[in-house]
């Protein structure tokens, strides 16, 4: 980060994008999502998954604020997803499964968090990676319980006791994902403006100072970590309830990489970023896969490379920049 300016009077770079309203873009985004889901039925599914992943990426965003990259956050997503898959045969109520999945992921997040928040930077990233790979290996190896790489199918769920038609169910899942995305988006926005959230960036820039303010940097990071695990678990439950099939692939390190990818693609500057990123990611993926089925990965990779090299603020950064200029 550049810090060479010497003039006392230099403006604060307008405290990027925060001065810009997020409300209007958010409302427009929601309207666009609903419109697309209505107009193109199958995209409803893609967008539901995108919203779910966006929720998980909100968690990545929190850690990025603290300068930490988790290359293993798919483990919380997988925990949420497998919770749904394991419990669904006994309890088909989606509105119970969802909080249960979130709770279990949160507990795992607390257990893992207590361990990993002692580490920074590359060690933080690698430890998360290692732990997610342990989970991945267990999901793959404990065939008796997890059916290995084939995964588990999630049976048809009930919503508030009702078992709706497929079309209705798709709308219900979409609505649920959208509602949770908005709620978590608002929560993260409030959190990032609170002392706890603002202290995250302190971990990134001056952790020593936090300690000399009497603040435990570990506790600040742990709170964010557990919150991110909660969101990861919620996302996993949504993914499992939407795709209705879970596999260990959900926990593989490349899936974690994807989450970080989405965070950067969308831009870490706003709680809207993850959702912009997730929608863009999923759409590029399905269209790239439809256009060139055996080189979609290369297209995604190229998109990522271009974003980092030429628009490091991500999609939100570009949007915010454009809006600021026109304002």
């Amino acid at each position, binding site marked *: 980060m550049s810090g060479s*300016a010497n003039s006392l009077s230099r403006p604060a*770079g307008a405290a990027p994008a925060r001065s810009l309203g997020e409300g209007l873009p958010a409302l427009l985004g929601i309207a666009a999502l609903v419109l697309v889901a209505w107009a193109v039925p199958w995209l409803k599914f893609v967008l539901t998954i995108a919203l779910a992943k966006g929720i998980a990426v909100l968690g990545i965003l929190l850690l990025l604020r603290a300068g930490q990259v988790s290359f293993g956050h798919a483990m919380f997503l997988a925990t949420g997803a497998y919770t749904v898959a394991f419990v669904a045969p006994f309890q088909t109520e989606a509105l119970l499964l969802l909080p249960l999945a979130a709770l279990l992921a949160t507990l795992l997040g607390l257990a893992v968090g207590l361990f990993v928040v002692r580490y920074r930077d590359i060690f933080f990233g690698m430890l998360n990676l290692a732990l997610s790979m342990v989970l991945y290996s267990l999901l793959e190896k404990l065939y008796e319980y997890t059916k290995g790489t084939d995964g588990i199918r999630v049976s048809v769920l009930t919503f508030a006791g009702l078992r709706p038609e497929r079309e209705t169910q798709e709308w219900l899942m979409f609505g649920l994902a959208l509602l949770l995305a908005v709620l978590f988006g608002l929560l993260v926005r409030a959190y990032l403006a609170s002392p706890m959230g603002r202290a995250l960036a302190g971990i990134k*820039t001056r952790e*020593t100072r936090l300690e000399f303010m*009497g*603040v435990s940097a570990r506790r600040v990071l742990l709170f964010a970590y557990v919150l991110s695990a909660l969101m990861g678990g919620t996302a996993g439950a949504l993914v499992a309830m939407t795709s209705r099939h879970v596999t260990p692939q959900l926990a593989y390190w490349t899936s974690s990489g994807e989450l970080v990818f989405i965070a950067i693609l969308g831009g870490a500057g706003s709680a809207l970023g993850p959702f912009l990123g997730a929608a863009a990611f999923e759409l590029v993926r399905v269209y790239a896969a439809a256009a060139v089925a055996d080189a979609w990965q290369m297209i995604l990779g190229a998109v990522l490379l271009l974003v980092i090299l030429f628009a490091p603020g991500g999609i939100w950064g570009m949007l915010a920049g454009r809006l600021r200029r026109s304002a």
Partner: protein
Amino acid sequence: MSASDRLGAQAEPSIEGVTRPRQQDAPLLSARGLKLAFGGVKAADGIDLDVMPGEFLAIIGPNGAGKTTFINMTTGYLRPQAGSIEYDGQPILGLSPRVLVGKGIGRSFQLPQLFTEHTVLENAALAIAARAGLWSPLVPLLRPQWRAEAMALLDRFGLAPLAEVRADALNEGARKLADIAMAVALQPRLILMDEPTSGVAAAEKMSVVETLVRVLRDAKVTAVFVEHDMEVVERFADRVAVWSQGRIAALGPPETVLKDPAVLRDVIGIEPAHSHA
């Protein structure tokens, strides 16, 4: 109380001949026999030092003598190999910086430790939030009450016009003041400052120090500061400790110590202007 009172009362580390009530005269900070060596270099080699409530104690000495080490040991960042430190009559060795902050020991840094991605206002507000212990994740940091308190604090340091500037865009003088402001926001009883004027442009130096001293005196904070500029020491310190090769070579009021030929030769004689440790 005025500066001369303190000067008279505490010209020597001993407390004989002092007429004030006993508890007021007990040292706020008391180090005994501190020893710490890095490899072969002795940063502290049997240090005894008392800091009296309300006084401004300057520590001077050549680079690498161990002055910053003393601050680091007192604030829980480093642990001495031998000796003890008492604060307010209680042993504090082994306590972490976080705990010591809670007990009222603050510090500033030679290289200001500001949150560079935050504005000056947010830096101050974070410190205020830290002191208040209010860490609700849902209430904004810049809630009206804390914003007002942070602005008032910045105002005392003359930093109010810079409140919305990002910390990494400040110049060195403002950076130093903001750094100390964050320590003051925690309402310490004792503050240890590591070279509060190093790197500050010569023209600004005196105004920075004057601001500093005014705020600290108003807040009735006891201060220990490491300093290289003898003019600053002479004008603002109540007592001076000369740190040389891990020992205290001289201790007393500036007008005495700074005239000592040995000190002049060993400390001031080799002192380069505005050095960095």
